[in-house]
């Protein structure tokens, strides 16, 4: 790693102020950032640690029935505390990385990084979440902007994520066998106004909504409604773990399984 300072602010305001420094970077759980720093692929002047900010921690239910998760909340906390409110999201969180990673990695960090194979982008997009930052509220549909890219500005922090609770939902992850990230992950959520299907791991553009499947499932929420539907292999990621055609095929399989398992 290159040398840098670490600051540990205790409020969002202090963190935002600290992030104004040139080449300062936010450090959330660090489970992706720290390996990146070790490889000397990033050269921040300072890391602003978010782990000491109490107002970014924890879960609550909003008056309109949405699940609100502080941006600094770990996957482990979501896995245990969201289970009663949004079991599909809790189940998804309980299979990100491994237990030790889940004790550090956070929802805000994951969404801000927007790894094309990460789970949370699918969970947020599939839930039609609202991403709340220190500056604004952003609909998940507008938030992701291609792999490893979001609409967040420099120094902008995800302070909270609000997820409407669906009638039924499920996340199916087919793991990339080495990294255990999603080779293909599909989050299906059924709301009163329609079904959302969000796919991670597959596309060169990062997480996306499979609109044909959403339309079919909104009409008939059953796996058989997907018969004959497929996503094109064009634009799918191809690597040693799976061809583009294989990933496209898995999108269909995992969507069907998620529908069948949704509760």
């Amino acid at each position: 790693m290159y040398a840098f300072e670490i600051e540990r602010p205790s409020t969002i305001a202090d963190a935002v102020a600290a992030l104004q420094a040139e080449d300062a970077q936010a450090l959330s759980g660090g489970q992706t950032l720290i390996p990146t720093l070790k490889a000397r692929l990033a050269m921040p002047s300072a890391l602003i640690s978010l782990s000491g900010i109490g107002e970014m921690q924890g879960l609550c239910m909003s008056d309109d029935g949405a699940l609100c998760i502080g941006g600094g909340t770990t996957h482990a906390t979501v896995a245990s505390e969201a289970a009663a409110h949004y079991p599909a999201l809790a189940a998804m969180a309980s299979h990100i990385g491994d237990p030790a990673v889940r004790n550090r990695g956070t929802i805000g960090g994951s969404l801000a990084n927007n790894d094309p194979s990460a789970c949370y982008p699918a969970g947020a997009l599939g839930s039609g979440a609202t991403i709340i930052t220190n500056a604004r509220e952003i609909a998940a549909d507008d938030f992701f902007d291609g792999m490893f890219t979001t609409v967040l500005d420099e120094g902008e922090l995800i302070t909270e994520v609000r997820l409407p609770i669906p009638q039924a939902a499920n996340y199916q992850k087919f793991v990339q066998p080495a990294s255990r990230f999603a080779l293909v992950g599909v989050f299906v959520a059924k709301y009163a106004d329609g079904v959302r299907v969000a796919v991670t791991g597959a596309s060169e553009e990062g997480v996306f909504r499979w609109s044909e499947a959403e339309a079919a499932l909104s009409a008939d929420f059953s796996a058989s409604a997907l018969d004959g539907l497929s996503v094109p292999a064009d634009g799918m990621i191809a690597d040693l773990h799976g061809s583009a055609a294989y990933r496209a095929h898995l999108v269909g399989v995992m969507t069907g399984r998620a529908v069948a398992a949704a509760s």
Partner: protein
Amino acid sequence: MTSVSMTVNGRSVSKEVEGRTLLVDFLRNDMRLTGTHVGCDTSQCGACVVHVDGRAVKACAMFAIEADGAEVGTIEGQANADGSLNVIQQAFQDHHGLQCGFCTPGMVMSTVALLKDNPKPTEAEVRDYLEGNLCRCTGYHNIVKAIMAASGQDVSSIAAE
């Protein structure tokens, strides 16, 4: 340099560290607690698992400064007060749950955390929990068996010695 203070295996320590000092380097180099190992640089192998405020974390993926004020537990603090092996350590020895020993500290620390949350895990739960702990020697057979034995379950029906 920044001053950090924490409790390591029940002892209070204060040291000056650089921002980039990882918790694992702090433990190994500053505290000379070399039982916590480094087996990869992508936070996957789990040889460095320690406890921070009672939770298992990868000490290679956390900065020492972030453990300021925390209670840190390492493999060196796991034995009973009289120096004898604790129940988990003893089960690993009884069931040959280690060979070269390099992954073992992380395995033991993960097991402590697992059994705290889930005192009687099934085989599948044990295997699932060990997703972040790689072992190249044992094929995991005797590790899983040792963990189930440490939880007080009868493992006599599990194949082989």
